[in-house]
């Protein structure tokens, strides 16, 4: 089967890709700027075709707990929301991580804190990559920079989630959610009929009962479990780092940016290069695991790194940890739902870093 070309919003691409990836269930609650996902699914009515369940829950809290229930049955389930809604889901997410359940969570980020704005932001970076809820855990975090990646990362997110029995998150933002681009959609996949050995589907006489829980009252056993999680995260760090480089070979200055900011920086690289400034871009595609090793190598070659992000400076902390003092690292970004533009990024580079 061939891929199909469509012009779609990032949000619509997530919805369509979920159907095509053979997802078993979607549970969500409306919030701007990602309500198109639930709207698209309701209109597409996949329960009539693939058998995928779609349910508008009474809250984000209920939605993430529905994801817990579905994932614990070994099903491919997802939920989507935007920043305030993702905060509400944090309880469920830590339980899912603690019970080692695979699922996909999409955050179409808007500016905060609090109710904030409905415009695009990248101010949920800490929450996404450092855990988010209580306890020691990590999500696998993918950062799409195009509508195509919004679609592609649905399948990738599910694959990684099931491979590692770990929740995966697509950390997007309002700009990528709302914009339309060309997207090549994969053909429809069958919903999986295989049942993971750990799934709760009713205990046959041939196996012991399956219990999905994150509870362990014995601290010694809990610590053993924590160590198991760390081993899993280390394996993920070893095998699943993804990033893209643009003009890094001869770069003296390096932008580090993901998602929408990375798209802005691609243009900034063109503009700066046209003025004879040797700039490159490293775009992390996985934010957890972070491309730390590569950044550390690049720190041997570049003079300065600039973490460009739509936040007060969150990812910069991972850049700093990666380069471990080898080069100075600056932050540049706008907040409150304002997306920086390519000229502004170049201007900052020239006035504050090269000239400063």
């Amino acid at each position, binding site marked *: 089967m061939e891929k199909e070309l469509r012009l779609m919003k990032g949000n619509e691409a997530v919805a369509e890709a979920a159907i095509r990836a053979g997802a078993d269930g979607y549970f969500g609650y409306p919030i701007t700027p990602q309500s198109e996902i639930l709207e698209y699914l309701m209109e597409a009515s996949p329960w009539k075709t693939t058998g995928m369940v779609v349910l508008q829950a*009474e809250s984000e809290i209920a939605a993430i707990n529905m994801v817990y229930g579905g994932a614990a049955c070994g099903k491919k389930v997802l939920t989507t929301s935007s920043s305030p809604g993702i905060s509400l889901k944090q309880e469920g997410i830590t339980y899912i991580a603690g019970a080692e359940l695979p699922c996909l969570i999409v955050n179409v980020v808007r500016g905060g804190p609090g109710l904030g704005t409905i415009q695009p932001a990248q101010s949920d970076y800490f929450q996404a990559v450092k855990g988010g809820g209580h306890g020691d855990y990590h999500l696998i975090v993918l950062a799409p920079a195009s509508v195509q990646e919004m679609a592609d990362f649905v399948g990738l997110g599910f694959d990684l989630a099931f491979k590692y029995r770990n929740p995966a998150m697509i950390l997007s933002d309002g700009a990528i959610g709302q914009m339309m681009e060309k997207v090549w959609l994969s053909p429809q996949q069958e919903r999986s009929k295989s049942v993971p050995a750990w799934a709760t*589907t009713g*205990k046959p006489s041939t196996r012991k*009962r399956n219990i999905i829980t994150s509870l362990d009252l014995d601290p010694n056993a809990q610590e053993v479990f924590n160590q198991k999680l760390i081993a899993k995260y280390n394996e993920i760090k070893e095998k699943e780092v993804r990033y893209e480089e643009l003009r890094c070979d001869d770069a003296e200055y390096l932008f580090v940016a993901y998602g929408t900011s990375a798209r802005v920086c691609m243009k900034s690289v063109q503009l700066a290069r046209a003025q004879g400034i040797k700039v490159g871009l490293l775009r992390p595609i996985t934010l957890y695991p972070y491309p730390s090793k590569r950044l550390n190598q690049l720190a041997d070659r570049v003079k300065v790194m600039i973490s460009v992000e739509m936040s007060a400076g969150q990812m910069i902390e991972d850049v700093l940890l990666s380069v471990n003092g080898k080069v100075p690292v600056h932050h540049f970004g706008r907040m409150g739902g304002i997306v920086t533009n390519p000229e502004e990024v170049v201007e900052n580079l020239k006035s504050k870093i090269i000239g400063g």
Partner: protein
Amino acid sequence: MAEATGIKDILKPENLVYNKTKIMTDNVLSYCPGCGHGTAHRILAEIIGEEGLQSQTIGVSPVGCSVLLYNYLDIDWQEAAHGRAPAVATAIKRLLPDKFVFTYQGDGDLAAIGTAETIHSCNRGENILIIFINNGIYGMTGGQMAPTTISGMKTSTSPYGRDVKLMGNPLKITDIVATLPGTYYVTRQSVHTPANVRKTKKAMRKAVQYQKLNKGTCFIEIVSNCPSGWKMTPVLSNKWMEENMFPFYPLGDIKVPEEKSAQ
């Protein structure tokens, strides 16, 4: 004399009048002496065994005294976050519609922190069974006031008795869910006497049948005691329950299927 009628002489097949159900595991229950949870578990286990549902059942356990329920019944289990069991069960049942899905929740779990999940699952008519243990107190955390604590009742956070003007009124959540179109069968029972045990078991068996017929949400409240939380002996706690809880939470069916639709 003791040796003459030792325990081995008594444990003979011909003397056996009561057996452990197969569905109960050998794990020792973590409940206080005289607590109703063990009896409620046993009834549930009997029903699952007798109806041949072991391979078809997914249970959702709560946060509360019965948080370790998954250790006691030999079926597949999911442990939900506090109050979220009906949302968890909603997804299980929708993704595995042929399975028997139930939640087992206490009053703090179901009627306080999980009120939204309870109301909305019932209102959607999710085809699940909700078993609701109401002992008017937060047992696991040490006897604090619950949404169901009756007026004047002493708890560790209402040490002079629940003052409804200050602390709000006890919530009859079962009566509320009975008004929702999604619930099919709503009943309030107890497990403190053999007669009541039989009634509760009958109610559970009905709920199993209704779920097989996709009738909607079945909701069984079990008014129960908490000797430790109430600071009473088991016997006294049952007496106190009859005298104080039952007048406010009267036993019996609250919503029953109409004859025609029950066929």
